[in-house]
């Protein structure tokens, strides 16, 4: 009774109907710090990740300028200097045709870096979206989408890429990346889906649902950030994976075109005689390992930064 009286004392017109702005409802949860800004703040604090970032910068720098540092052209043959170990003249040694490996390793890095990065990036983006949609909607959508993945994985990859090289009649970098990512995203999609199945039944998603947040927003803002740790591990694994796959694709002629080269190509060519000339295998492999290391450490840093549950 009393209450009623009290409200009656406030005039009706003093109230403004704000309504509920859809989508922003969830933001009431806590004071808002931008997701990206927050992530960057945390990433900067991570020393290891910063070091990794520096390693990566050095690698990138060398792939750009390295080929011109040694004073040898990467495709120049020298009959008198074949299969030489590392020396003052040839820092990384020479290959079977007497070509300077220092120049070749950095020349090769251009393609490999590009391929490793774009490959991993493209496949994880597609994989995340695909897996996210499948898991979120579930039921028949999930069923159909997963069956498609199964089909894609089951058709022999070799056949698909051979055909691709025949049909496209082109051996450009674009074709190569297409061939690499054609089925590469399927693994990511399955991982993301599994992770999301687990997350989507958790309370905060239900809460967001109740608040009427759109599906797109739930997937992008709630589900994906929570699968980030798995995705990052996958990306770091995928980078060397794609670098090696490029060498494998050269098996059907889709890899880098001669006289250009790549780390994968250098490593696979060195395998034939690696017991005799281990350095020919060592340097390209080292670069692949360093790249992976840098990305792994950076990935861990990123993961710590991006995973909302690890927020401090």
């Amino acid at each position, binding site marked *: 009774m009393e209450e009623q009286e009290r409200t009656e004392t406030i005039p009706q017109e003093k109230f403004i109907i704000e309504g509920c702005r859809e989508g922003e409802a969830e933001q009431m949860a806590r004071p808002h710090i931008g997701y990206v800004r927050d992530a960057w703040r945390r990433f900067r604090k991570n020393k290891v990740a910063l070091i990794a970032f520096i390693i990566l910068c050095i690698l990138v720098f060398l792939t750009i300028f390295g080929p011109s540092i040694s004073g040898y052209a990467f*495709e120049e043959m020298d009959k008198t200097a074949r299969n030489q170990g590392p020396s003052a003249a040839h820092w990384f040694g020479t290959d079977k045709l*007497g070509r300077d490996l220092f120049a070749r390793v950095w020349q090769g890095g251009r393609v490999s870096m590009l391929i490793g990065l774009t490959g991993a990036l493209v496949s994880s983006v597609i994989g995340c979206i695909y897996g996210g949609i499948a898991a979120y909607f579930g039921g028949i959508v999930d069923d159909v989408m997963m069956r498609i993945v199964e089909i894609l994985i089951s058709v022999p990859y070799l056949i698909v890429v*051979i055909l691709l090289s*025949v049909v496209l009649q082109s051996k450009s970098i674009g074709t190569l990346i297409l061939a690499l990512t054609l089925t590469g995203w399927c693994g990511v999609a399955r991982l993301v889906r599994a992770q999301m199945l687990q997350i989507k039944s958790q309370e905060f998603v239900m809460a967001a649902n109740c608040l009427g947040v759109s599906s797109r927003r739930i997937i992008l803002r709630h589900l994906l950030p929570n699968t980030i740790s798995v995705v990052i591990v996958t990306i770091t694994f995928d980078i060397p994976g794609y670098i090696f796959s490029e060498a494998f694709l*050269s098996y059907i*002629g889709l*890899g880098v*075109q*001669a006289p250009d080269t790549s780390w994968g190509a250098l490593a696979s060519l060195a395998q034939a005689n690696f017991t005799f000339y281990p350095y020919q295998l060592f340097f390209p492999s080292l670069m692949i390992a360093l790249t992976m290391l840098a990305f792994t450490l950076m990935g861990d840093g990123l993961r710590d930064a991006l995973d909302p549950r690890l927020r401090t």
Partner: protein
Amino acid sequence: MKRKAALLLAGCVFLAACSGGGGTASSTASSQAAEEVSQAQEETSQAETAETEAEETPADTAEGQYYSSFMDADPATLDISLRADSYSSEIMLNTMEGLVRTGEENGSYVILPALAETWEVNEDGTVWTFHLRDSVWEDGEKVTADQFVYSLRRSADPATGSPSAFFLQPILNFGEINAGEKPVEELGVEAPDDNTLVITLSQPTPSFMMMIDATVYYPQREDKIAEFGDKSGSEAEYYISNGPYRLESWVHNNSIVLVKNENYWDADNVSIETVTIKIMGDITTAYNAFQSGEIDSVYAEALEWRETFEAQGDCFPVDYPSASMGFATFNNKDELFSNVNMRKAFTLAIDLDEMNEMCFSGMRSPAQGWVCDSMSVEETNYRDRAGNMMQAMRDDMEAEGMTPQDVLLKGMEELGLGDDPSTLQVTMGIGGTDEWYRTLGEYLQQVWKTELGVDVTIDYNEWGIFVDNIMTGNYQIGFLSWGAYYNDPYDVLSLYLTDLDMVMTGFSNAEFDALVTAAASEMDLEKRIQNYIDAEEILIRQECVVCPVACAEAHYYYKNYVKGYATMNFNKIGLKGMSTGER
């Protein structure tokens, strides 16, 4: 995966090939000292491993001599009519006996009687009569002339779909029968009695004796083929032999065991009791197995391994040229390469000796012409007579005071393409992508750039696609290898006959055709050799239809106790002549 091996070594790799006589004495003398040293070394290092070794290998005291070898792929099938790969051919060589075997004596080939004790040919060279010795199969059944007739008919029958049937080409009516136009009974083979086989040819074929040690000329058992059905030759139990060895067991992609066939007519001259052939798809495994003593022979593909084995001391090398030619083929119908000077410029730009060093670690022999160095016309080495045609072509050029680039510019002028080589668009197709092919392609690309100033695109492809491009004439330059099937220049020269054009060059030359066709039925040795030389002159020196690069060479290593190995390419004695002395 073993494309290269299949392609380059097809028809000429016999890992365990060996000779009946000669050469054994020299083998051990020089390496005995080394053997002693290595034994001393091994005694110390092997003390703890003696156990493993003992259970690893069959005891050589009780079982008699044994021999272990390897092959780099599993045989596709041991059905005589259906086989086509060199691995099955190697097994058949040791488990079957045909009419004759090609052996060697003092560096020349000799044809040794096998099941045919004697043979004669009629005057015009078309009817060959073979008199068979009495012999039996491993199950005691008699080997009869009828079984040869059955075998040849089965292979010629279009319903069999035999990929090796073209070996029967010289036999009367083969073409019509294989095309289904005549019944198989009309094939020119007859068995007047159990021990006489008469083969009638459609035209005189002087090289016929060189062809009939091919596997497709082995006898087959009609009763067994009926019993095995489709499975014939697919497993050890579906295979029957009449040769020096019988097939004891066959685990696909793992190992094959051969055991001496006591029913073999010449069993007294077979020394080794058990042969184990391991399938090692990866050559590195074979190298390791050879070093650890698990296999008794191996071949070296790279100089580095050669040096390793030489240093090892418990083995000795046997090198001989094979009959497989690696060559760049020009599409003679292509706008650019229809011009002879363009073809010559691309050929002459390559320093074959340097290429052999750079690409093949000096493990091949630089080409001297289209016909491999190891080939002979009957017992006369062909190359000794024909000389170095690649050099002759170079001499021709130098006599005119020209460089390869001058030749190129001359060709460009003739084609009306101006005088800037860098404007030319040339693509070379290569049907393989492993280290070997990569090196080759990148080397040639660089050579043509520096010598001719032409930027050549190298197009690596999966083998099937590459072959398809070649077959449809969709190429400018392609790299191929061709291993001779039998020892006569006709085998490799006939590829370029207008009607056959097996490597799709688009080359057609009436004079060349006439020379080669005439040689095929020329019974006079001298005239035949001269015909071949004249034909090769046209093919290489004048027209430069293809650019021969290098002949493959076999580089075998045998453990010091191995005796009776082959030293020549077409030797088909196999394990029969082999023995292992004191291990």
